């Protein structure tokens, strides 16, 4: 199954993903209209800036296997699809107890202020590629199977090595 995977070494902390995410989850799906919307559209991906390294790491729901948030949710507002492993959240059923937020190992369950319910990544249903991935200018976010990412990295490493060898040969 495809996941949103991060390559922190490529992230430059532009936060395009955050904006794209909020817009995608707005009524209008348009940046300028979304800003004015009530409730305020909210991002579900968080770019954490690390000043010591002048680096940034984007974080979003990992859609864990046997997801802790779905285990503790009393009203089953959080549900995991048995096949795709996607964890979805129903605002109607959410009672705002924040049990999910407490057990999430990645801290990626946020709060929708007006509706007082949880918000989290739902992998953009209806889209082939999640909005955050599509918006990433440096490919720090990729939508791939884990196996595939290893392949990509292998190719990159091989390319680097080949370039080095070429330099030597010259």
């Amino acid at each position, binding site marked *: 199954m495809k996941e949103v995977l991060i390559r*922190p*070494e*490529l992230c*430059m902390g532009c936060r395009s993903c955050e904006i794209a995410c909020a817009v995608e989850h707005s009524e209008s799906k348009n940046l300028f209209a979304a800003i004015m919307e009530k409730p305020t559209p909210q991002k579900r991906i*968080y770019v*954490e800036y*690390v000043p*010591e*390294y*002048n*680096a940034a*790491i984007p*974080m979003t729901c990992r859609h864990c296997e046997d997801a802790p948030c779905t285990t503790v949710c*009393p*009203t089953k507002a959080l549900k995991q699809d048995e096949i795709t492993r996607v964890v979805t959240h129903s605002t109607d059923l*959410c*009672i*705002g*107890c*924040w*049990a999910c*937020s*407490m*057990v*999430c*190992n*990645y*801290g*990626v*369950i*946020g*709060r929708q202020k007006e509706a*007082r*319910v949880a918000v989290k990544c739902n992998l953009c249903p209806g889209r082939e590629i999640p909005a955050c991935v599509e918006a990433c200018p440096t490919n720090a976010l990729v939508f791939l199977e884990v196996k595939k990412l290893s392949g990509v990295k292998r190719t990159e490493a091989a390319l680097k090595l080949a370039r080095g060898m070429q330099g030597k040969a010259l």
Partner: protein
Amino acid sequence: MPTAVYCDLSRCIGCRACELACQRENKTSRISLEVVEGLAPVPVSCRQCETPLCTAPCPGGALRYENGRLEYDAEKCTGCGLCILACPFGAAVLKGGVIERCDFCPEKEIPVCVATCPTAALFCAEAESFGKNIRHRNVEKMKKILDPSIAAGREGRR
């Protein structure tokens, strides 16, 4: 603001100081801690839900969600105990005709359970702030692994 007494379970050592402090302050402990299988301590207290189910069956309006928080008015309480039956967490008890549930120790600056917690596992803050902490913690962990590549990547771009 969704503020309640929450627990960072990874820090809890199951010492029960919270229970004892609460009992001392409020006569009945409103937080209950058990260690599951002798290995995983979990304290349970009122989660101050934002769409609280306990208010649904309340006949006199004693329990209500107001000003962004769950309010309880003992004067209006009829002592029917229906709220207790509605709570999915079993976090309140009826005692002497009134509801015993976490009210953040109004006479104290911070709830006594939070103040006494030796490991600072219990905290009284917004739920989001905890998510933020976890993300920071993960960044710390990732830093160890990603350190060389990040540093290299940055250098190239500077």
